[in-house]
């Protein structure tokens, strides 16, 4: 049974790595939003500098998945786990990329006068962060039911995005002098909305991993 224990060890190490990547993506998003709300460009630059580590982790996970498939030929739940991780790693890396884009927007916005907003972009970010954390928890515990619930909650982010989108367009029309800053914030909101979509992807992979059910593109 040593060979099987070896596979278990490798799968466990893969799980640790993908959770580490998830943690990095979560931290990048949290700090990018902090940089934006607290106007702290130093923190924003740290987020950007840290992105190399995220990229490196993604490549490590890719290699590990390929090695396991080639050398261990996993089947059934092991195969579903490895495939899910292989597809999840680039999704988490993209979430970190969106966090970097938010950090860049924060640096630009911090160089301009502060824009007092009548809406809460932070609320949207909090929702995205809660979804991401819950999605990683559902993945860790192979909890398809929770994953399905998280997917449903993405509509709240979409609603918030639509609300913010309309408010920012109004602002551009009524106060043209703020248009550049409004546009940057609009991009931030779009990044958050996309993160919600990526979290949905993670949850779909969790459902596949746990139940071998393909729920992607099934509404």
């Amino acid at each position, binding site marked *: 049974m040593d060979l099987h224990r070896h596979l278990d060890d490798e799968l466990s190490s893969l799980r640790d790595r993908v959770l580490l990547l998830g943690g990095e993506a979560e931290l990048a998003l949290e700090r990018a939003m902090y940089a934006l709300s607290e106007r702290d460009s130093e923190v924003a630059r740290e987020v950007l500098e840290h992105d190399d580590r995220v990229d490196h982790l993604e490549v490590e996970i890719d290699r590990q998945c390929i090695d396991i498939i080639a050398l261990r030929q996993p089947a059934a739940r092991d*195969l579903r786990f490895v495939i899910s991780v292989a597809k999840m790693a680039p999704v988490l890396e993209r979430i970190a990329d969106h966090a970097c884009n938010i950090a860049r927007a924060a640096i630009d916005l911090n160089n301009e006068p502060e824009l007092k907003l009548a809406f809460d972009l932070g609320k949207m970010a909090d929702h995205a962060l809660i979804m991401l954390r819950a999605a990683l928890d559902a993945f860790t515990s192979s909890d398809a039911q929770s994953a399905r619930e998280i997917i449903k909650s993405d509509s709240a982010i979409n609603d918030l995005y639509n609300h913010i989108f309309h408010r920012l367009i109004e602002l551009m029309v009524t106060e043209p002098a703020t248009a550049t800053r409004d546009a940057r914030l609009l991009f931030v909101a779009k990044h958050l909305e996309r993160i919600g979509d990526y979290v949905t992807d993670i949850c779909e992979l969790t459902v596949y991993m746990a139940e071998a059910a393909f729920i992607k593109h099934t509404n």
Partner: protein
Amino acid sequence: MQLKSMPVQTMAPRVEVPERRDTRVPSETPSTQPKVSVRDLDFFYGRTQALHAISVDIPERVVMAFIGPSGCGKSTFLRTLNRMNDVIPATRLSGKVMIDGHDIYAPGTDVVALRRKVGMVFQKSNPFPKSIFENVAYGLRINRITSSKSELAGRVEQALQDAALWNEVKDRLKTSALSLSGGQQQRLCIARALAIRPEILLMDEPASALDPIATSKIEELIFDLKKQYTIVIVTHNMQQAARVSDTTAFFLLGKLIEVNATEKMFTAPNEKLTEDYITGRFG
């Protein structure tokens, strides 16, 4: 901007994407009636029960693989399909094994005719110490299937071609079969089985003693043969079962635990015991 002069259809024409098709399914549609139908089969070696209430259908012109740990009964079950167990003393059987709707254990069954219909290839190649030609011709001669030398030669050539061996041996048909490599000897044994034109081919670990290249040739051959034959293969190599079969059956301690489409079996089996075996977490 000359918007008005732009063609109405600027997008590339839609490309029709064909539905995902399982290339392992033969182009001809097999009949819906199972080729082999087994019901409540119990098998005993003396007092030891080796098979417990096995019920399974094997459709025509598919490859069904039997997997399971050593001693689980998969080879015993395979041998019940052409009554090869009859030659083992103190064995008995209850239940039904139907081939094309006929109970092969019914009194009066012509066992020789049955074994013509249900050919078998064994784990270790066992060519006769005769020429390549004579090995394939042997079954045709003793069964008096051919009436002329030219017909015999034609049947031998066809069998060797079906076994993907003709091109390698056509210039040395009179040399000893024992001069062939292990993989060639195994394909010769397959040709010998095919020469009498069976409908079902039973293969008991046909590639377990072969190197990867010879194994690959046997697997390609199995893939080609299923267009004409119903193939039942016992294998210890789960990757081989995954590669060659349409349906996989998992045996454990003489019981049939699960039968499922091979894709399903190796990605999401229904039974926990199957999952534990396939993922190597057995015991």
